[in-house]
Structure formats: structure tokens, C-alpha cells
């Protein structure tokens, strides 16, 4: 039987990244189409922290490797270990979520397995041995259907396009393995985490993003976000200026989000920004310029000054709440 191997990812706090659940969900879809068995692998300093959770996600086998070297993710130590497991299983597909780690790691794994790769997969098509992948190109202006012709096929998936695997399913067999941990030419130096009390951008139900129109004043955006339990996002212009942390950038080269509600304030709607938020369920745009391209994708547009609208909106929502 063919095998689909999904790589799990832990957060710095040791918990499973939510995107891993979507990647396992994607793995399930692929396994069904390809008539394959789903396996999951976790490399960790402390796999026990999440192996219980991984067990119930519907995979056949959960492989765990425990080593002190896996404390900090490094492509050079993780790639050989994943590739070694994929080889020993004879896996046909190896994939994970398109997170920063997924994008860094998976091509290196692919290179080791002489596998071709598709990045940011949005859907799997076909069945049996004849599987193709849908993925965006040109900042999401084009959807391509691609086939990978190598025996092993690698991919990352866009978490927003796949439902999260649900817990509590038939328990997977948990197998420990001990890969050869290769010496790395690269050393982890440090990680400066941007801590925020707000929900994570890619996971939030509501996202409020500010653009250059805010002139760097995010007070009203943050106040509205706090009222709605929303995450804060930004356009590239805002991150480039250093007004907010880089990892709030939404777009082609930033985060891809698909919340229930996306509010864009003072964002013009360049194609690179739209690439990261176009599949949100409801889009609200607030912009002074009636011609701004953001209005072409907005369900509700307001041609107005954001500094006037945002406080009014917050007050109205506050009132409606009570």
C-alpha cells in the first residue's frame, strides 16, 4: 500500500502547531485519493508532550524520534532524519504545512529523496497513482495543476485550504525510531519570539489589518481587535517601515489567512496583499480612496477616514454587545 508521510511541527512552547492539524487533514484527503496509508512523524527533544494528541488524529502510525539535537529546529538535522524514515518506509508522498519550518525543511528533504515538490498545495486531484496538485502561482493570480513525475513526491499544504484533522479517532500505533543525527554545519544562535496576547494571525476567526494609511498608528486597530478577540495583521508597507513586527505581514510573501471576518483599514489592496486574504469569508475595507483595488474584493466597503471609522465601529460593536 502507498504511504503518505506528514511531518508534525511543535511550537517553541512544545505544543503542536495548529497548522499540523490541517496538514494531517490534507494527508487524510491525499491518502483517500491515492489509496494510501497515513503516517505522521515527529522529531523532538520531548515527543511525549504531543504524541498522545497525534495518536488520535486518524493516522495509521505515528513515528517519533527523540534526541536533544531536535530541541531547536535546523534543516540540516531534521532533513536527514525525515528522509531516512521516508526511505525506510518506502513512502510515496512526504508533506507538511507551509509554515516557515515547512518551507525551509521540505525542499531539503525532497532533495535528499530525489523528489520533485509542490509548494502551497490547495487541493489534490485524481485517484490511485494518478494524483495531481493544485497550487497558486504569480501571487495567486493563477492556479496551476501540476504533476510530479519522480517516484517520491514532496509537498507543503496551505493550512487554510484543508480542514483540521479531528482528535479522538482510532488510536495510531506509536513507533519510536532513532535516526542517525548528522553533525550540522549550522548552529542555532537564538530566537526572539514576538509574544502577543492576541490569537495567532493564521488561526484567528477575525483579523484586523492596517496599511500605510494608518501612518503607523495601530491604537484603534488594536482596540478593535481586543474587543473582537481578533488577530492584528498588516500590509508589507507597514512591516517594512518597522511599525509592527514582520510576522504580521499578510500576503504573497507573508502569512495566508482565511478568517470569518477580515477588516482592511488603510490598505490599497495590491495583488500581493490580496494573495494572502482573498479567501476570507467576509471582507470589510475602509479606505479614503474610492478607487482603491481593495474594494474589488470587499463585501462591505466604506470610503472614509479610518481614524474616524474605527472608533465609531468599536463603539457601535461595544453597544451592540451589551
Amino acid at each position: 500500500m502507498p504511504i503518505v508521510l506528514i511531518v508534525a511541527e511543535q511550537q517553541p512552547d512544545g505544543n503542536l502547531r495548529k497548522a499540523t492539524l490541517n496538514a494531517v487533514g490534507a494527508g487524510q484527503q491525499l491518502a483517500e485519493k491515492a489509496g494510501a496509508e497515513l503516517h505522521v512523524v515527529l522529531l523532538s527533544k520531548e515527543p511525549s508532550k504531543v504524541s498522545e494528541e497525534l495518536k488520535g488524529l486518524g493516522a495509521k502510525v505515528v513515528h517519533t524520534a527523540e534526541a536533544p539535537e531536535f530541541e531547536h529546529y535546523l534543516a540540516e538535522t531534521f532533513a536527514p532524519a525525515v528522509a531516512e524514515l521516508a526511505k525506510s518506509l518506502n513512502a510515496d508522498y512526504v508533506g507538511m504545512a507551509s509554515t516557515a519550518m515547512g518551507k525551509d525543511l521540505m525542499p531539503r528533504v525532497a532533495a535528499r529523496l530525489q523528489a520533485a515538490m509542490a509548494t502551497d498545495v490547495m487541493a489534490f486531484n485524481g485517484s490511485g497513482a494518478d494524483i495531481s496538485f493544485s497550487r497558486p502561482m504569480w501571487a495567486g493570480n493563477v492556479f496551476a495543476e501540476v504533476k510530479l513525475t519522480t517516484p517520491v513526491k514532496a509537498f507543503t499544504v496551505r493550512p487554510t485550504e484543508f480542514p483540521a484533522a479531528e482528535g479522538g479517532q482510532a488510536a495510531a500505533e506509536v513507533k519510536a525510531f532513532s535516526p542517525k543525527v548528522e553533525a550540522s554545519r549550522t548552529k542555532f544562535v537564538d530566537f526572539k519570539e514576538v509574544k502577543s496576547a492576541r490569537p495567532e494571525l493564521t488561526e484567528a476567526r477575525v483579523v484586523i489589518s492596517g496599511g500605510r494609511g494608518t501612518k503607523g498608528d495601530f491604537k484603534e486597530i488594536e482596540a478593535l481587535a481586543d474587543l473582537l478577540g481578533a488577530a492584528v495583521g498588516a500590509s508589507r508597507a507597514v512591516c517594512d517601515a518597522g511599525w509592527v513586527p514582520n510576522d504580521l505581514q499578510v500576503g504573497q510573501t507573508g502569512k495566508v489567512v482565511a478568517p470569518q471576518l477580515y477588516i482592511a483599514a488603510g490598505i490599497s489592496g495590491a495583488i500581493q496583499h490580496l494573495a494572502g486574504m482573498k479567501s476570507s469569508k467576509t471582507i470589510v475595507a475602509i479606505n479614503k480612496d474610492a478607487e482603491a483595488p481593495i474594494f474589488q474584493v470587499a463585501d462591505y466597503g466604506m470610503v472614509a477616514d479610518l481614524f474616524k471609522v474605527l472608533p465609531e465601529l468599536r463603539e457601535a460593536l461595544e453597544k451592540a454587545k451589551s
Partner: protein
Amino acid sequence: MVDVPVSCRSREYPLFKEKDVKILVTAKRVEDPESKIKVKPDGSDIVREGLKYKINPFDEIGVEEGLRLVAKHGGEVVVVSIGGKEVQEQLRHALAMGAQRAVWVNHTGALDQMGVAGLLQKVVEKEKPDLVVLGKQSIDDDQNQVGQYLAEYLGWGQATFASKVESLESEQEKSKTPALQVGADGKTVQVVREVDNGLATLECQLPAVVTTDLRLNLPRYASLPGIMKAKSKPIEELTPEKLGVDVTPKVQVVKLASPPERKAGIKVPDVATLVDKLRNEAKVV
């Protein structure tokens, strides 16, 4: 710096600099990011008539970083592009920015990331740079793969999504100092990376592969004298055959399609209407 005899080095730069580094940077030819991309009705390609072409924005950032490193340490920036003869435009652009010389791998027709990485591996083995700087992704394919494949093929360390702590409007950026920190002994490079939820710093032994993110630097404009000078800088021509690389694509594009169109909604006159719509129509608050 690393296992390259000094005699192989270009000595254009004064020797009082601390170190010299040889940097190989890539310059892919891509559609201007401002252009409207449309799919042909038969889904075989995009409509290419009337499109403008540029150097991949991430690669331009790579060229800039290379130039800053060489200004600080001495050495040379060699730029490489793979494609038909039109990619010489992008090579000339990098040369006009200040790169010393160029390598053109002449290939027309389809090419995937494994093909590109395979060709670059051979160019690297020939040139023996201390550092290879690529873009994190090309804005046409959006694959984000070549640098990582290349690092694995070479058995080198990789630091993807290179950025810096300071913003693009900081003094540090204005002074045009490089963000990549070459160690005092010339054996390592420290790279700040943009990752999820923060900035991670890695130290790679040289030689290494780095891929650039948007906030690594603001690329310079090519000056008029730079453009004039670029005309006489050498471009070496290679081919996949000469390099002995089979570039048959393993990623086959079956069909292109336009994404589902999102319809523009309505304009609301005031906040009260907006709140009403969000509550009663969209039911999201």
C-alpha cells in the same frame, strides 16, 4: 576564504579590507510584479503579450546584499541567471548595480526547481564561492525551493528568509551596512531569519547558502555610470550540456486556470449600516 586558493580571487578591491568574500548571486527573469497576469483561454500559459520583465525582486535584494558584503570585506559578486538570451537583461541589471561579472546558463524551454538547483550546483562547483545568495522565492513560480535543494545538493548549511532586526527605515539600513555578519575569522556567517512568530538567528559555516526575504535591505538603483560600465563587464555563457545536467522537468504543469473570481460587494454609507450588515447579513460579529 574557504578552500579557495588566493590566486583564484579577483583582486579588484584594495587589500587593506579585513577579508575578501566571493559571492554568487542569482538573478531570475520574472514578470514585473506590477503587471496584470491573465491565463490564456486554453490554460496552456499566461498571456505574455505586453508584459514587462524584471529581475526577481528577492534576487535584487540578494545582489544588493552581495555588494554590501564586498564593499565591507573585499571580494567579488558573480551573478548567474538561467534562461534564454533575454535573461542577459537581468544580468546586465545586476552588473549595472555593481556586480563584477556574470554567468549565463543558456537554456530555453521548461525548467523546474530541481533543474535550476542542479545547474547552480555545477556553477558553484566551478566558481567555488564562499556564499551563495538566492531569493527565497521567485514571484512567478512561488515555489520557495531552489536555495534549499541547492544547499542539500552541495551538502552545505542553509539560512533561508534572511532579514535583519532593524527596519528598512533605520539608520543601519541608510548606512548600507550588510545585514549578513561574516565572522572575524571569515569562516562563518550569522543570519537573522524571518520565521513564524519572530526572528531566529543562525550561524552557518562557510561556504553556505542564504535566501533573502523582503526586509534584508533596500536595493540601490543602477547609476548611469554603472549602466555604462556594465556594458563591458564579461558574461560567460554555459549550457546544461556543458555542465552535464539533465534538466528534464519533474514538475509538469498540466494546466493553468484563473482563480475563482471574488465579486465586489457593496459600499456602505455609515458605521450603523456596516454593523447591521455584519450582524444580520454576514453574521460574523
